[in-house]
């Protein structure tokens, strides 16, 4: 069986599955249950400064976007950082780390933007023997109104400044958690690196309104008739998160900076995808909140079986393996072409490929052949866009087959050479051949 042991910025854990800083890691009771269930590590729910803790609303904190059968595909929260006293959290962290030395325990932090605040709390955390800290520069609701969380993460100079303070005042590894509520994730990632961060973790949640109550005319869920934006997460954000992870992984300025991947990880496959794009490990929250801690069993066994099948002895074997294949659009091979192919034996004749193509794309799929209901690709029209395969309800019924030879749509030869937009004659800023 593959070795799932993970070492992330020097922090060892028996597997790369950590619970993210969030409600599931707010106290010892939950964290111990998570360790018992098999989680490799946790990032303890964000601690604030000493003194009276923050208070949460007493109305609903969570909302969800549901798919078929009320599957939670997107999740929204307005919970703040821990609302328990700092001392209590620190005491529990110390006890838990003492009792579970083989598991990763990282502490998430969020204090005001002054050096003393950070120095003080780092000193207190060090005394717990925790493995590291994660700077919460991502929380988009409540805390950001007080100049913390994403209010810091959205200003690269602040990210760099606070990261630098933290690196100066602690021997612990410093992971900087990034907010996705920015136009270019590379800017805060570069700032974190300049500040000396050991790693970045991303994404935190995305500003969101989950729904509108059309009777009360307010955001749903609401607190006494008023609503506010929350932070969005769950499977729906995974594509956004993976893009941001890949952007950082392939950016020359941040290349090699360790990344902890977060955002909709629900299965072993999600984790493997994040890791292939450069994440050294992954953090999970929504899936645990929806299904409970035992989902980690599926993740462990699934990743292990896949690694065995691929001959990967350790996670390092495939971390970042897909990064070289992430590129800019301009470098995609314009001499490569695919055609959709419909397996008539698998086709159930729902016709969705036809109407999708007919109404919204390239009129390349028949509805009738010789008067009978039959869905067949017209190669002369098919641009290989993949829409039909995307909407088909049957797995592998429609496949995109690479074409070698003359494309009947364009009459041009494809599949035998490489040419991209940078050299294309239609490109007004085409580079002259050197």
């Amino acid at each position, binding site marked *: 069986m593959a070795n799932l042991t993970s070492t992330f910025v020097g922090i060892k854990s028996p597997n790369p599955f950590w619970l993210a800083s969030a409600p599931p890691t707010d106290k010892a009771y939950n964290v111990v249950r998570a360790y018992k269930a098999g989680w490799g590590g946790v990032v303890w729910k964000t601690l604030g400064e000493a003194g009276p803790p923050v208070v949460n609303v007493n109305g609903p904190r969570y909302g969800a976007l549901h798919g078929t*059968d009320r599957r939670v595909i997107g999740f929204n929260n307005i919970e703040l950082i821990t609302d328990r006293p700092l001392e209590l959290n620190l005491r529990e962290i110390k006890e838990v780390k003492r009792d579970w030395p083989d598991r990763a325990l990282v502490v998430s932090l969020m204090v005001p933007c002054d050096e003393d605040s950070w120095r003080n709390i780092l000193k207190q955390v060090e005394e717990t023997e925790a493995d590291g800290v994660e700077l919460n520069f991502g929380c988009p609701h409540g805390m950001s109104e007080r100049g913390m969380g994403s209010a810091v993460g959205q200003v690269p100079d602040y990210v760099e400044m606070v990261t630098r303070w933290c690196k100066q005042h602690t021997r612990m590894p410093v992971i900087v958690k990034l907010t996705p509520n920015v136009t270019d994730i590379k800017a805060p990632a570069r700032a974190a690196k300049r500040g000396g961060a050991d790693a970045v973790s991303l994404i935190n949640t995305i500003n969101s309104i989950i729904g509108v109550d059309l009777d009360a005319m307010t955001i749903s869920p609401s607190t006494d008739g008023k609503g506010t934006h929350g932070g969005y997460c769950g499977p729906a954000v995974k594509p956004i998160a993976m893009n941001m992870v890949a952007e950082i992984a392939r950016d020359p300025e941040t290349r090699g900076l360790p990344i902890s991947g977060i955002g909709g990880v629900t299965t072993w496959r999600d984790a493997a995808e994040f890791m292939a794009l450069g994440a050294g490990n992954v953090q999970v929250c929504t899936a645990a909140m929806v299904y409970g801690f035992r989902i980690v069993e599926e993740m462990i066994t699934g990743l292990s079986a896949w690694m065995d099948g691929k001959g990967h002895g350790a996670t390092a074997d495939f971390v970042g393996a897909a990064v070289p294949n992430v590129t800019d659009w301009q470098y995609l091979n314009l001499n490569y072409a695919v055609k959709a192919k419909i397996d008539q034996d698998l086709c159930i*004749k729902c*016709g*969705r490929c036809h*109407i999708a193509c007919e109404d919204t794309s390239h009129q390349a799929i028949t509805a009738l052949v010789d008067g009978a*209901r039959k869905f067949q690709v017209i190669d002369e029209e098919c641009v290989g866009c993949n829409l039909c395969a995307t909407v088909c309800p*049957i797995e592998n019924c429609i496949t995109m087959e690479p074409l070698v030879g003359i494309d009947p749509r364009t009459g041009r030869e494809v599949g035998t050479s490489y040419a991209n937009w940078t050299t294309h004659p239609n490109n007004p800023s085409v580079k002259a051949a050197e």
Partner: protein
Amino acid sequence: MAVAERGACPKGGNNGVFADLHAALTPHQAQVEAERCFYCYDAPCTTACPTSIDIPLFIRQISTGNALGAAGTILEANIMGAMCARVCPTEQLCEEACVRNTAEEQPVRIGLLQRHATDALLADGRQLFAKGAETGKTVAVVGAGPAGLACAHALARAGHAVTVFEGRDKAGGLNEYGIAAYKAVDGIAAREVDYILGVGGIEVKTGTRLGTDVSLDLLRAQFDAVFLGMGLGGVNAVGVAGEDLDGVFDAVEVIAKIRQGEPVAVGRRAIVIGGGMTAIDIAVQIRLLGAEDVTIVYRGEEARMKASPYEREVARTRDVRIKTGLKPVRILGLNGKVTGVEFAGPGGEMEIIAADQVFKAVGQKFLSGEAAVALEGGRIKVDAERATSLPGVYAGGDCVAGGQDLTVAAVEDGKIAARAIDAYLRA
């Protein structure tokens, strides 16, 4: 012979004996089932529906919490959507065509979803339809069954004044009198009729039969157009000795009595002669009413029975025996009372089955009510527009040639005829 008077229940009160054949879907079940629909293009289910209900649309409407909108979609195509949801052989129509059969041998339960939507509308009570601006034209509709009411409803929406002549005491036709009670619990047939008539502009004259109370000539003289939808008024005889014995019944009469909550005789051993839906309906109901041993005897092979495989399954799971390949030769009796039936097998061998009740369910026949329209195969001849041989006279439902003896087909006839009548009146 012990023939007890049982089953005497007030209207709608038969539910204890005749529990609903299917439980209605709960809101959660409806949601789960609705989400199974693939929303097919040019959907095969819609093509398979005689009334062409836009099934993917109404299921999508259910899935988005718009059950009343779904009901509107259904009723726009089939004003008897509530009863059709219960009596349609969906396994041979929409659900047979569902592409989920190919995907996983389990179609979307379209019939139950249709019922979910139409039940929601009837419970809500709001009227989705209104009569049209008055045209000043009048139409006589003969028969307040599915064909007649569908035609009347469409004509009222078009603005014509409609008078429906119904021979029985109540409107509804076979939905009210000819369908097994367990398919129409809680007075659903009557509630649906009330909803249909709620459009306004339709007057129903019950107890008025064509041929005895009114004549076609009179209707043609007094109305601008006539629609004939009187169904099949006669019952076929088995054509063997002994049909007049005490204990021999016409199945349709007994079914009507059960539906109206009137007392019916229930014996210990019953034989049902026939192979259609009526045979199943009487056999299952008489068994549920307490008959200990009920046998349906059909003359041909089972595959040729008009009762669908599903209907036969309903019968068998309720302890009704089905014997096939036996042709009735004579009904046996003693002291004027039936004691059994003698049948001839395929090879001519004789078989006697003892019984204290025999129900004849060998089909119904058209009674013209002395209407002088051209016939074809014993029923009214119509063209594609449902026009008869007489100008301004249209027909549909079971009384026309080529009919499928299905409620849903009768509704479609009524719809088509109404369109043709409207065009005729506006010409």
